[in-house]
């Protein structure tokens, strides 16, 4: 197999990278890990004339904690780096678990979190847990920077709000009162499988009541979606198995799956129901985020 020819540029700074993207417009693509982009190019689905490599932008790799802001994950952090990172292990272990659930070791050493978000495949594993933790996306362009809720980052399969010349630089998980979170993915084998359905949930529990809850569904809609109706079942209420079961049912009903070679609509709705229930139970009982 051949990767179609392209011009390769490896800018030395983020502004330089953004400028190159503006210069070449639609004929340029950002190369982060490449585990998704290069596959698409080999399959003939993409033929960018320019690849703008982020390889020299070491600043985008770091994972750090900033007081007042939260945990900042550089977009170039690989999934294994996220998985093994001690800050995330301490504060948001479910993010590490979500990264761990992806693909296989080799891909996790190449693929980046930023890449996973920007490729915006509906079955992506990182968006649901990050959105459940109210993550923000810091986007850098030639003339401006903006930070938006990650929830608003996607608007269709493969489509994000990034405008020409913009690069996703960091993902910020803000400090929050969340007491537990969890991501469960259902794949058709135990490694190297896309999610047939994935559910992330985060809860803030005190005195047996659910003060706040976020439920995010993956692979069952054009983009990762908040199961808001399911959330409303639980929010502000005393936690009970009946309510958790109800939330699961409602989440299944409000999901918008399609039928494809991995699963039918009916089966996916069932998975959402089951996984929501299990994710909530785990988030509630876990005792850590």
């Amino acid at each position: 197999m051949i990767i179609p020819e392209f011009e390769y540029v490896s800018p030395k700074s983020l502004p330089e990278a953004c400028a190159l993207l503006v210069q070449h417009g639609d004929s340029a693509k950002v190369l982060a890990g490449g585990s998704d982009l290069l596959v698409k190019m080999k399959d003939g689905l993409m033929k960018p004339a320019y690849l703008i490599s982020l390889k020299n932008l070491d600043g985008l790799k770091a994972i750090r904690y900033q007081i007042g802001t939260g945990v900042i994950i550089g977009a170039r952090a690989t999934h294994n780096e996220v998985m093994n990172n001690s800050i995330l292990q301490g504060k948001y272990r479910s993010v590490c678990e979500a990264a761990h659930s992806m693909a296989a070791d080799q891909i996790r050493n190449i693929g980046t979190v930023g890449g996973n978000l920007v490729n915006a495949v509906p079955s992506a594993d990182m968006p649901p847990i990050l959105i459940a933790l109210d993550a923000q996306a810091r986007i850098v362009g030639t003339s401006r920077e903006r930070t938006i809720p990650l929830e608003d980052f996607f608007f269709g399969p493969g489509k994000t709000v990034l405008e020409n010349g913009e690069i996703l630089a960091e993902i910020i998980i803000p400090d929050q009162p969340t007491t537990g979170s969890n991501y469960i993915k259902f794949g058709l084998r135990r490694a190297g499988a896309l999610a047939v359905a994935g559910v992330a949930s985060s809860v803030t529990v005190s005195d047996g009541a659910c003060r706040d809850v976020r439920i995010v569904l993956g692979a069952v809609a054009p983009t990762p979606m908040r199961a808001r109706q399911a959330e409303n079942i639980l929010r502000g209420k005393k936690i009970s198995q009946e309510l958790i079961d109800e939330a699961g049912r409602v989440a299944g009903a409000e999901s918008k799956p399609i039928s494809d070679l991995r699963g039918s609509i009916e089966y996916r709705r069932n998975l959402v129901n089951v996984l929501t229930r299990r994710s909530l139970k785990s988030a509630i009982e876990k005792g850590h985020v």
Partner: protein
Amino acid sequence: MATAIKKGKLHVATLTVNDEEHAALVKANTTLLDLLREEFDYTGTKKGCELGDCGACTVLMDGKPVNSCLVLAVEASGHSITTIEGVEQSGKLDRLQEEFINQAAVQCGYCSPGMILSGKALLMRNPHPTEREVREAIGGNLCRCTGYVRIVKAILAAAEANS
């Protein structure tokens, strides 16, 4: 007779492969896999699917397993690569290679280089893995011959030798 001449813009890729410095002029669209196999004659690294699904092309990049079919040669420039040829040292087999032989973990052998490198990387970062951890480490290496039974045994046996 005419042989292949590289056309178009060429980049210099310098990388350490199996502790030896290598340099090549490559097109941007050359993969690390093709650089290793075609330029440097490290044919031990195999081409199985070219899309990152099978792990036959696994090499270690700075000690971490990657699918070389999905790494551009220009991106690998500046890094240290270990291929299967670099596992034995001065003609002496690594313990892991010996266990692959002893445990009959090699059938057709096409997945073996990738398996051994994934296993080696695991043992370097975790000298006493559980069986589950071994299976996870080779989760991205497909084998069609063995059912993985003896491969897992071999990696655990090599870990035993560490204690």
